[in-house]
């Protein structure tokens, strides 16, 4: 076992001339990977209120309540996505039959209070027949 005293020095000097790998976070930002799982975003016109997402969410972060009174034919639903509890596993997007939920690539989720993190949607329940064909592409932050 030969002992070389300065065995790391040549490596250090080589690294000195390399471009540093760290970036200047708040001023320069890394662009997110294509399939990055950010926060779930609902496109209300596709949701048929089947509660598959509410049942499958491991952190029970999705909650659907019916606002309109029972007997009214045209159901009015309110979905709140608790982004402070969501674990970003995208299981809701996968188990939604009509592809109403999709994940955007937002990763800066710091907020002053947890109430800000609750995304609330109120919409009329879509019927199975008139769902637009291709699913919307979720907003990609830069």
């Amino acid at each position, binding site marked *: 076992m030969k002992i070389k005293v300065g065995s790391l020095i040549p490596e250090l000097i080589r690294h000195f001339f390399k471009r540093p790998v760290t970036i200047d976070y708040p001023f320069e930002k890394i662009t997110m990977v294509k399939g990055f799982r950010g926060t779930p975003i609902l496109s209300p016109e596709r949701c048929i209120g089947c509660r598959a997402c509410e049942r499958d969410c491991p952190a029970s972060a999705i909650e659907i309540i019916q606002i309109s009174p029972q007997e009214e034919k045209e159901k009015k639903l309110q979905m709140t996505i608790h982004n402070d*509890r969501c674990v970003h596993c995208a299981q809701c997007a996968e188990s939604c039959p009509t592809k109403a939920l999709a994940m955007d690539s937002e990763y800066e989720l710091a907020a002053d209070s947890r109430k800000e993190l609750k995304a609330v949607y109120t919409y009329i329940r879509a019927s199975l027949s008139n769902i637009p064909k291709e699913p919307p592409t979720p907003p990609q932050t830069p």
Partner: protein
Amino acid sequence: MNAETLSLRLQESFGTLAEITVTGPRRLICKIASDQLKSVVTRLRKEFHFTHLSTISALDLTDRFEILYHFADSELCLTVRTEISRETPEISTITSIIPGAILYERELQDLFGIKIKDIPDNRPLLLPDDWKEGNYPLRKDWTFQMPLETIPGDDHSEK
């Protein structure tokens, strides 16, 4: 030495004491009475060189407890299965044969309330010191209420 040949050897060496079933390519179950535990485990270690105890898991079957000792060696995984009644949940320790089982037995004591006879040190392992005596979390009859989400600094609690 795959599961079939081993189960045959186990069957004729234990005879009536144990029923051996093969439940998978490398899985073997050996059902024994609870008082035979010590002798079976010593013979498993001596004759069949099962030295590695992966873990001990317990099941609460409402009227009785079932305890499974998962042994493993370099080819397959043998589970020794015993049953104890719910009124007198007691089983003898195997730390004298396999010292590594100490933590798993203490865990059984904490979470299931199964008393391990002459265990070297039976202080609580997992539960806090001020845990009320007598209630064991992993039993089926122990239920817990999911706490309501109360956002601090909020006048009314959520949901």
